[in-house]
Each structure stands twice: as C-alpha cells, then as structure tokens.
C-alpha cells in the first residue's frame, strides 16, 4: 500500500495528541512550550500533506511558512515571558502561578 | 548536473552508499594532513622543528596520534549523563559531515546536487550547536557547560553575518545551487565573485568593494563558527580547560576533533565556492580544466584557506567575550547588511 494522505494525517494526529498531552500535564512552562511546538509541527505536516496531495499546490507550503514564522515569534516571546516569571517567582511551575484564579 | 558514480554504476542503493562513503574517505586523509599541517606550520611559525621522530621528518606523527586516541581508554565520568554524553560527539560530527553532502568536488562529482545547497549547509550547521550543548551539559562539568554556552552564543551570533553573505551571493547568482554558482564564475579569473562576478562593463568595479568586504566578513565569521583562533573562546584552554569537550577522551574526543577539522574544510570550501570560482580553473576553460583538474583546484583552493586558518591560529591572540559579541553584532552584521543592500541594488539596476 502506497503512502497516502491518510498516513500523514494519522501521523500528524498522533503528534498532535502527544503535544496536547504534554501541554496539559507538564508543570514546567518550557515543557508546555515544547508541547506547543509539537502541535504546530503536526499542523504543518497536515498543511504540507494537503499541499502535496492536492497536486503541487504551494499554498499549503506558504501557510506552513507562516506557521513557522508564528512559531518563532511565539517561542521568542513565550521564553521572554518565562524568563520574567522566573525572575519574579524563582520558579516556572505554572500550576503554582495561578494568580488568575483570584 | 551529473554524478559520475551514477554514470558508472547506475542509480541503485550501492551507488548511493558509495556516494555517501566518498566524503568520509576524503575526510580521513584530509584530517591527517591537516593535523600534520597544524603541527608543522606551528613549529615553523614558532621557529622550531616540530615532531621529527615518527617517519621522515615526523610525517607519520598524525597517524601516531590517531592510533593513540583509538587505543586510549574511553572514560565516561560517573556523574555524567551517559546517553547524551555518548550521543553528543556523533551529533556534532553529523552536523559537520552532512555539509559534505552538498559540497561539489568537481564538475562531475557532487554527492547530492540539490538546488538548495547553500541553504542546506547553513541549516545543518545548527546540528553542531545542539551537539555541543548536549555534550557540554551531559559532561556535568561547569567548564564544559560554560564552554558549550559560549560556543552556542558565538556560533549563533556569527551565523547572521554569514547568512547575509550567503544571501548576497544568492541574490547576484539567482540560485542557491552551488554548482550553478560555480558555473557562473567559470572562465577566467576575473569572473570570480571576489573580482566582481561574470558581468562585464564598468558596473563590475562597483561590485568589487562590496564583494571584498563580504569576503572578509565571511572569513571572520567562518573562523568564529569553527571555534578557531582568534575565536576559540569556547575551548580557551587557559580559561575553561578545554571547553565543552573537557571530559571527552579517546574515540569520542577524536570525533569532536574530526568534526572540527571537517568544519574547517567545509567553511574553506564555501569561501572558495562563493568567491573564488570553486573547481573552475583560474586560467579559463582552456587550460588545466576538466573534472579531474576540478578536483585539484577545488581541494587546492580549499586547502589554502585551511592553511590560512592554521596560520591565523598561531598568529593572533584570543578575543574577549564582549569583544567577540561587539564584533559580531555591531561591526560584521551591519556591514554585511549594508553590502547586501548595495549588491541587491546594483543587481537590480544591472
């Protein structure tokens, strides 16, 4: 059986689920960030798979480029915020940073 | 763009393996020669004789060293993180070796003639970064860690001017394919990019200063990326013992060592390809030209720059960290961006 679109979609679905799991369960903020990167990657796989299997339609790749750009900005700003959190709390365990609750 | 291996055996898995092995086969003797060069040139510079015992005038000294390294006990510190400690040298070496995949040796031989060669070289450089961090952290030694972090900071900082140089050349050449870039410069020596590229007319002379500046920028950046003197801060032995590979010994150290020499060749080859016409003959297409001569020219020119690097190591003192950062961010980066803009403008009006 040739490798079809379904394979890639399943791959990206699994990757997404793993990323989601990491995002939800990890205490460390940077770990959450890593989970987010996984999710973004799974999305990118989908984009490019659709782009490839809908003929060589490069729009999907362009979207993937923008996703990468977004990932970069997100990582940069998230890390900056995490550094700030670290300076204030001396830790980055986000389940303990729940000021939002009050 | 042909590949003579495919021409010889056809497109099959054996051919692919052969193609993969050829650079490796090249690296081993090259490393020996480079080590010998380092020893002998250093000795010459410092007005001493250098190693003389092994072989004629000590030419077999590198072989002896390699044998020594292979024989040495492979020590892994008990408090080190073993999986990563063991993995790190391989990743660093992968990073260096992957670049050989797109480096042309001749008109007829390039392991993988992908269209994005320049970009690829640029990208796989980051493997080395991860490997260095991995090794430095896994060693569980503060010198290692400090050296790793310094190294990473340095490499990332100098990737930017290097990237601008790549971009400038890609703009003027209209491609990222190394073979095409070299073909653009084929012909007499003044077709090389350092002499203004293949275009004729008076505008050529407007290009020259910018290319010369870019050439110097890339030379400096390449020294920094390979952690060579005067940018050997990550492994400055008088400060942090040996940097990220302090704890390594034996075969793993040899991997690091090899990766460094491989990197030296890679950056030299890139300089040659970008500015000095790659495998093309300086005498034009009529004299000393052809696939075999191409290998000669390519490797010869690259070796010259390896020599330059060794030469500089024995000549220049080490920079401070802040000087390094200043140079990278406030001198080279603006300079390279300015040159890029100028070249893009000139290319547009040309």
């Amino acid at each position, binding site marked *: 059986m040739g490798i079809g679109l*379904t394979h890639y979609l399943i791959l990206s679905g699994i990757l*997404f689920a793993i990323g989601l799991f990491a995002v939800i369960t990890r205490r460390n903020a940077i770990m959450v960030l890593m989970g987010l*990167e996984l999710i973004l990657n799974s999305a990118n796989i989908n984009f490019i798979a659709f782009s490839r299997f809908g003929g060589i339609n490069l729009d999907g790749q362009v979207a993937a480029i923008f996703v990468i750009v977004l990932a970069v900005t997100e990582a*940069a700003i998230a890390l900056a915020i995490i550094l700030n959190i670290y300076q204030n709390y001396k830790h980055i365990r986000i389940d303990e940073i729940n000021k939002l609750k009050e | 763009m042909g590949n003579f291996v495919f021409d010889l055996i056809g497109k099959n898995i054996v051919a692919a393996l052969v193609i993969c092995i050829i650079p490796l086969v090249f690296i081993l003797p090259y490393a020996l020669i480079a080590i010998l060069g380092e020893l002998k040139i250093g000795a010459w510079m410092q007005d001493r004789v250098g190693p003389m015992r092994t072989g004629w005038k000590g030419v077999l000294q590198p072989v002896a060293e390699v044998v020594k390294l292979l024989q040495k006990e492979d020590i892994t510190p008990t408090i080190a993180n073993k999986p990563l400690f063991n993995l790190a040298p391989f990743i660093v070496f992968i990073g260096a070796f992957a670049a050989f995949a797109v480096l042309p040796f001749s008109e007829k031989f390039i392991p993988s003639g992908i269209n994005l060669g320049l970009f690829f070289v640029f990208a796989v450089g980051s493997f080395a970064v991860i490997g260095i961090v991995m090794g430095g952290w896994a060693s*569980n030694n503060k010198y290692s*860690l400090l050296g790793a972090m310094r190294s990473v900071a340095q490499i990332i900082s100098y990737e930017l001017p290097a990237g601008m140089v790549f971009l400038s050349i890609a703009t003027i050449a209209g491609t990222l394919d190394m073979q095409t870039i070299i073909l653009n410069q084929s012909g007499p020596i003044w077709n090389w990019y350092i002499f203004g590229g293949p275009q004729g007319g008076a505008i050529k002379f407007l290009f020259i200063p910018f290319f010369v500046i870019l050439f110097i920028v890339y030379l400096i950046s390449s020294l920094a990326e390979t952690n060579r003197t005067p940018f050997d801060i990550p492994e400055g032995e008088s400060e942090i013992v040996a940097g990220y590979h302090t704890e390594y010994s034996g075969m793993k150290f040899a991997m690091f060592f090899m990766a460094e020499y491989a990197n030296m060749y890679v950056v030299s080859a890139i300089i040659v390809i970008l500015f000095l016409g790659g495998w093309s003959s300086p005498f034009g297409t009529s004299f000393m030209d052809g696939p075999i001569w191409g290998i000669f020219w390519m490797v010869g020119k690259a070796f010259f720059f390896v020599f330059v690097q060794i030469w500089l190591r024995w000549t220049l003192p080490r920079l401070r960290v802040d000087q390094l950062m200043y140079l990278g961010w406030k001198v080279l980066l603006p300079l390279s961006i300015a040159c890029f803009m100028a070249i893009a403008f000139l290319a547009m009006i040309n």
Partner: protein
Amino acid sequence: MLEALFYIFAAMIIGSAAVTAFTKNILYAAFALLFTFFGVAAIYVLLSADFLAISQIMIYIGGILVLIIFGVMLTTNVSIVDIKEGFTGKTSFIIAGIFSAITCIFFIYLAFKMPFINHAPKDVKLPNDSTIKPLGKLLMTNYLLAFEVASVVLLIAIIGAAMIARRHDD
C-alpha cells in the same frame, strides 16, 4: 523504499515526541525534540517540500530548539544533571491522557472518514527544480500582504521579547 523511509521517520517522530511528552528530565525532552523536528523535516522531504524541510531544520533546530535549551538553562538549576520536572498530578495525568487519546482517535477517525480525502496519492509530475522559486513568487504576489504582516510581526516579536526579557532593576 519510500514506504520504509516514511515508517522509519514516522516512528522516529512519534517515539521522540513521546519521550518529550513523558520524560521527567527537561533536557531529555529538549534533545528528544531534535529528533522530532528532524523527522518532520524528513517527512517534508518525502512530501517534496525541500525548501520547507531545510527551513524546518534551520528554524526549529537552529533557532527554536536552541532558544528552548537556553530557556531551560536559564530557568533551571542545570548543574544537577537529573533535572526532574514532574507532571501536574495524577488526576490531570489521567484526564489528559483520556483527552489526548480521544483527540487522537478523533483525528484518525477524521483521516479515514472525511469525504474530501483522496486516499490514493495523486500522480503528479514532480517539479525538476526546487519549490523555492514558485514559493518566492507566491509570497511576493498572492501572499504579499501576509508576508509583510508576518515580517512586521517578527519585528514586533523581536522588540517585544527584548523588552520583556530585559532586567528591570536598572
């Protein structure tokens, strides 16, 4: 052969991603990401998106991963090799596991059931040249606005990150 490559890389992606998600050592997680990203790049190559594959390597491995590792090193006491960072709790672990499992199943269900999906790969003529030229043209024509916005976003992100991460005691 392509099938084999796909399965190898898929296994590599899922395995390393699982390491990322389940290991207690943050740096293990970070280095496991290296393989995930590399695997994804390989998948891109299989999907004949060469430019994106190399971009993936350059940006994710050379940029984001380095950033993350630096973030870990700056926010954690890295001189201890065993950096243990746990999970938010057993309950949430289980709930999240169920969530993720459901999501995963849902996506797989979608992959099989959605009507627009063509199971067989379209037999299209792969371009000889790299995708970089058409991509560049698209970015400069159809997606010019998005491209410009993205560049502005990047610039703002740089400035913002520099502002936020700046030490405030000076």
